[in-house]
């Protein structure tokens, strides 16, 4: 294949097939007999042995391992079943996986041979409305030892992996960047499979074997439903694990793998010192008994209002709001935006973009402006502005009457005579109410100001790899992880300060000045919002505007947060185009 394997559709845009139980069972029937494939030689650590695994609140599994990767398994004293399996070993840990013939179920088992403790993942398909999404239940236990008492210790969920990031290369050539910025989710960039443009998120488990060895899982919910688990040695930066699921072409992936990686850095954690607990997001609401495999999964596409172009035109006509009162929709996101500036009041200038029509402005006061495309007729609009750094002003307004209901988020640097604009618009290809964005660069033409001829603001990778927390208002704190030059991820904290749910979207970063970055993110296949912020690393405050269209209408609202630096991953080298 020529070139980088960019996908025709990114993961959040793929219309994954709704596989039937029969289709899944048929595809599993072969691998249940053969066991998982492996690019590396399989381990014979279990060959010829018989073990019995006892789990808390879970199955008792009696295994007899034969030759040629065959095993027989007895679940809870039932009948023996034969299956193919694959095993790998890393340090003191032995790992194996097999399916149960005639079912859509299987197991992945992690055994610590030093302690005889075991973690058992029961895996199954067709447990959710989307059959292809792999479900998992985790059981903790031990390998029974004749004549010995059962150990009281267990592997445990943990936050000790939170904040870490690794580059991994599997033995089959698959390369990924994997970030664990929360104790309940993870974020991954498929470098070799998808070209590394965007990062994606999935619910995850983090389990401690010992201070060096940890178990990780990820289910690609909202996407292919593929399940990945591995044991990682944090010091050696090696992994052994399993991938199970159906890819975008509905091909079954069931393989064990071995991998090596590089440590990329460590982000800050925000739990209280001494808190090493894991699984910070309860599987169910308080007082409810979780069903087998239950977990909280963020499924934004399912809840996103999806409007047609006609519907968008109707809701925009019905209600359009720019910078509603402080108690209005989205007000919390602007809770820490700081005071507005009236610097623009009474001013007149033209923003001459290199790649879009020039925009002329007359500012009546601190909240009312008049705009027109050069030479066109004037339109009045409500705006708000903030001076993030002396001479740098961010302001935003809607462009009423434009065919795609545009909104502009603009940064003018009146010291440098430069302007950058994130031009939001609707009527995009997937859902008409989902925002798209064009980035415009140009200069300010204003009395007393001579702009540069060639110099412009420019896209930058200086923010890539950084993590910055944002406190918008009491109870509303998140963290951005700028994981690729073209996407970012946002993390929601729990009450204990642990990272909880996480999601991501396309993004871009523009350098305004040293320590001052103008960036956007698109909440694609989520709720369609365009978020834009001007991040000031000197003051650690961001201001910006959000642009959103939903069933309630079109709105532009203020965004503003107090920030904290949470660390940085060394990852820009993975995004360079090399000769």
């Amino acid at each position, binding site marked *: 294949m020529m070139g980088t394997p960019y996908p025709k559709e990114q993961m959040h845009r793929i219309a994954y097939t709704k596989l039937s139980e029969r289709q899944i069972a048929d595809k599993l029937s072969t691998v249940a007999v053969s066991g998982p494939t492996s690019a590396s030689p399989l381990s014979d650590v279990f060959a010829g042995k018989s073990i019995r695994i006892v789990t808390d609140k879970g199955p008792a599994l009696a295994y007899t391992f034969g030759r040629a990767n065959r095993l027989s398994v007895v679940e809870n004293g039932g009948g023996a079943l034969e299956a193919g399996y694959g095993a790998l070993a890393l340090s003191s840990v032995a790992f194996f996986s097999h399916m149960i013939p005639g079912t859509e179920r299987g197991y992945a088992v992690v055994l610590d041979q030093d302690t005889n403790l075991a973690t058992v993942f029961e895996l199954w398909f067709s447990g959710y409305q989307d059959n292809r999404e792999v479900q998992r239940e985790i059981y903790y236990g031990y390998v029974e030892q004749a004549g010995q008492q059962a150990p009281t210790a267990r592997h445990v969920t943990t936050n000790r992996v939170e904040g870490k990031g690794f580059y991994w290369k599997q033995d089959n050539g698959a390369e990924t960047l994997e970030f664990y910025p929360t104790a309940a989710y993870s974020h991954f960039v498929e470098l070799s499979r998808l070209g590394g443009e965007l990062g994606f998120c999935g619910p995850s488990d983090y389990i401690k074997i010992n201070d060096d060895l940890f178990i990780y899982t990820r289910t690609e919910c909202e996407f292919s439903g593929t399940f990945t688990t591995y044991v990682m040695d944090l010091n050696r930066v090696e992994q052994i694990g399993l991938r199970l699921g159906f890819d975008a072409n509905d091909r079954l992936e069931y393989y064990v793998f071995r991998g090596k990686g590089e440590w990329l850095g460590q982000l800050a954690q925000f739990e209280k010192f001494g808190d090493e607990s894991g699984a910070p*997001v309860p599987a169910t609401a308080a007082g409810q008994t979780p069903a087998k495999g239950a977990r*909280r999964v*963020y499924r934004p596409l399912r*809840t996103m209002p999806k409007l047609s172009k006609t519907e968008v035109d109707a809701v925009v006509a019905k209600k359009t709001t720019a910078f509603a009162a402080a108690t209005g929709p989205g007000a919390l996101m602007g809770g820490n935006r700081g005071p507005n500036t009236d610097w623009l009041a009474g001013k007149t200038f033209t923003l001459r973009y290199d790649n879009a029509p020039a925009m002329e402005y007359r500012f009546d006061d601190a909240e009312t402006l008049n705009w027109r495309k050069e030479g066109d007729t004037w339109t009045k609009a409500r705006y708000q502005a903030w001076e993030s750094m002396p001479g740098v002003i961010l302001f935003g307004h809607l462009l009423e009457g434009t065919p795609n209901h545009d909104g502009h988020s603009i940064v003018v640097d009146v010291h440098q005579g430069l302007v950058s604009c994130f031009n939001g618009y609707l009527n995009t290809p997937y859902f008409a109410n989902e925002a798209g964005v064009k980035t415009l660069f140009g200069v300010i033409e204003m009395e007393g100001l001579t702009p540069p001829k060639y110099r412009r603001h420019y896209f930058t990778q200086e923010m890539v790899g950084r993590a910055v927390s944002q406190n918008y208002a009491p*109870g*509303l704190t998140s963290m951005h992880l700028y994981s690729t030059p073209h996407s970012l991820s946002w993390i929601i904290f*729990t009450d204990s300060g642990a990272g909880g749910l996480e*999601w991501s979207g396309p993004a871009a970063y523009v350098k305004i000045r040293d320590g001052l970055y103008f960036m956007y993110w698109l909440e694609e296949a989520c709720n369609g919002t365009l978020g834009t912020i001007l991040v000031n690393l000197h003051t650690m405050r961001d201001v910006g505007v959000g642009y959103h269209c939903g069933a309630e209408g079109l709105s532009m609202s203020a965004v503003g947060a107090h920030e904290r630096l949470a660390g940085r991953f060394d990852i820009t080298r993975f995004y360079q185009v090399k000769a």
Partner: protein
Amino acid sequence: MTKDTTFTRRSFLKGGAVLAAPLAVAVPAAFMVNDEWKARLARLEDEVAVRELHHAWMRRINTEAGDAATPLFADPEGTCFNQALRSIAPDHAGQPDSIEIAGDGKSAAGWFHCTVEIETAIAQDCTLARMAHAQGGGFVRRTERRVLKVEYLKASGVWAIAKAEFPNGFEPATSGF
């Protein structure tokens, strides 16, 4: 004016002095002292009953056992605080609890200095807020010092809560505990 009902060594000594009085006074006076003692005993028993009722109610609030079987309220609908109230705890830096039994022994009032934890749900009007709620959060909690005033009624020998309020803030609402 409220009355401090905290038992002190002096209060027991005072009772003891009244109890000893019959040895030195005429019979009619002894009857009078006996009535006074009975009244005081009844008042103390009422205070204990009201205090136990209050503790039961506090346990119900703090464990969110809103459907507990034992009725605590004179009105079957109960006296309810806004569901934003998550817990009430004694304020040991405040004044002692005070329970005052009416002269006829059929009603009472209590004042309890406490700290209340109030939880306010943040509006789900942006992605971050919706995610916070999706993971079981999305609330802002704050703790405030308040005085809880409770009015009690006694019917068929059983005390029940007639009304409860925070006179200096925190409005009663129509649903909750």
